[in-house]
């Protein structure tokens, strides 16, 4: 039953990577959406009509910064797909990912 051992070892790693990237990135994305909304301020309705809320530039900047993190994550995924197609693999032994020939 060596296969079961290999599968369980692999499964752990896939689960951890999946949680970090597959759940982590969308959560960062959601935080980005929240920051953008906060940055745009809350509109209020009163007798003189609808008043736009006060803008909070910090929220907007933070929102786009969070989106950038997500985009980088997606680019990493793309690099992996394209790279492995051409016989390279991503190497994480330096903290930042590098492409090495397989």
């Amino acid at each position, binding site marked *: 039953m*060596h*296969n*079961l051992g*290999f*599968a*369980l070892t*692999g*499964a752990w*790693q*896939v*689960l951890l*990577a*999946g*949680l*970090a*990237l*597959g*759940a982590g*990135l*969308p*959560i960062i*994305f*959601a*935080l*980005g*959406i*929240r920051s*953008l*909304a906060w940055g*745009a301020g809350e509109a209020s309705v009163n007798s003189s009509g609808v008043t736009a809320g006060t803008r909070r530039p910090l929220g907007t900047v933070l929102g786009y910064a969070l989106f950038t993190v997500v985009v980088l994550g*997606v680019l990493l*995924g*793309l690099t*992996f*797909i*394209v790279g*492995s*197609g*051409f*016989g390279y*693999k*991503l190497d994480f032994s330096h903290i930042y990912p590098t492409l090495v020939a397989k």
Partner: protein
Amino acid sequence: MILALVVITALAFDFTNGFHDTANAMATSIATKALRPKTAVALSGVLNLVGAFLSVEVALTVTNAVVKIQDKTGAPKAELLADGGSGLLLIILAGLVGGIVWNLLTWLFGLPSSSSHALFGGLVGAALAGLGVAGVNWNGDGSKLDGVVGKVLLPAVISPVIAGVVAAVGTWIIFKVTTGVAARFTEKGFRWGQIGSASLVSLAHGTNDAQKTMGVITLALIASGHWSDLENIPLWVKVSAALAIALGTYLGGWRIIRTLGKGITDITPPQGTAAQSGAAAVILASSHLGFALSTTHVATGSVIGSGLGRPGATVRWGVAGRMVLAWLITLPSAGLVGAAMWYVGDAVGGMAGALAVFTLLVLASGAMYMRSRAGRVDHENVNDDWDGAPDQSATPIPAAAAN
């Protein structure tokens, strides 16, 4: 001539693989209306086409995972070439037919089952019939995850659970984070989130699945002496396989899209984003780690997970249960068809045998296509409500009862 039948059948399998798997990437985006149905299948088709060309790695050894008809370099085993390769071609042909028939049947019932497992099942059945028990790679050689158990059975059990957990966690936290945020921000944001993550899944699918057909066709070419280079795949094989999977994807397996997008659970845009990101991450991470899995199992697991993660959402376990049942019987069923086809081909013998197998395939496909005309599911009605839909034959239960 037998070779021509094998090539056509392989491309036909690739085509069914395409429309069977459109749902994996696009069902959620179609269900939440992030993309119009036609736009979604077109996008997915193009990405599959691009993906098929992106990979230059030779997937010549694809059958080694489950059967023993090739050596480690990808060359067909010498003892199978004694008769000019026609014995080997018959095994491949019967295996492909098993895969196609199972793909069409599950499509008819709107069940997302794994195309790779259907192919592997067909090949295992044909190899069992043609070569006996020793012709199947059951358990690998112990050095890595391999064989029917390691490449097919274990991943099928484990990968939907992993994808489900990832998507459930993602969905649950996303809903916590975005509660109370104005809809104009969440709708636009998650629309792009879904399109982006679904595109990644499509691209990854193209790089993985088209390769399998290319490998099988090239193996057939080598076996019949029309190709000898083990390092490269003929350009026309690459182009035709890429086109076949892209066209199949563009055709869209609407029945399966409907089951995955509407049947399991009612998906909202944040769930779609979480499900598709989870699927993309699990697919990429496992292919990085050499853990073979099926896109279908991952995508289905993550859709179920996103249903479990959203507060107040319900998962239709009846639908999910039927799917799991389909997964369980995919390998043996495709195997039975593959084996039966091998016996037919072998009994008739030679060229006529291959023709007989091919004719049976055409008849079976035609019959299932005709059956599907009653109760069409297409881009017009793919998003109709699941419960109480007037189009009863679109749901698997009555269709099964009618048989």
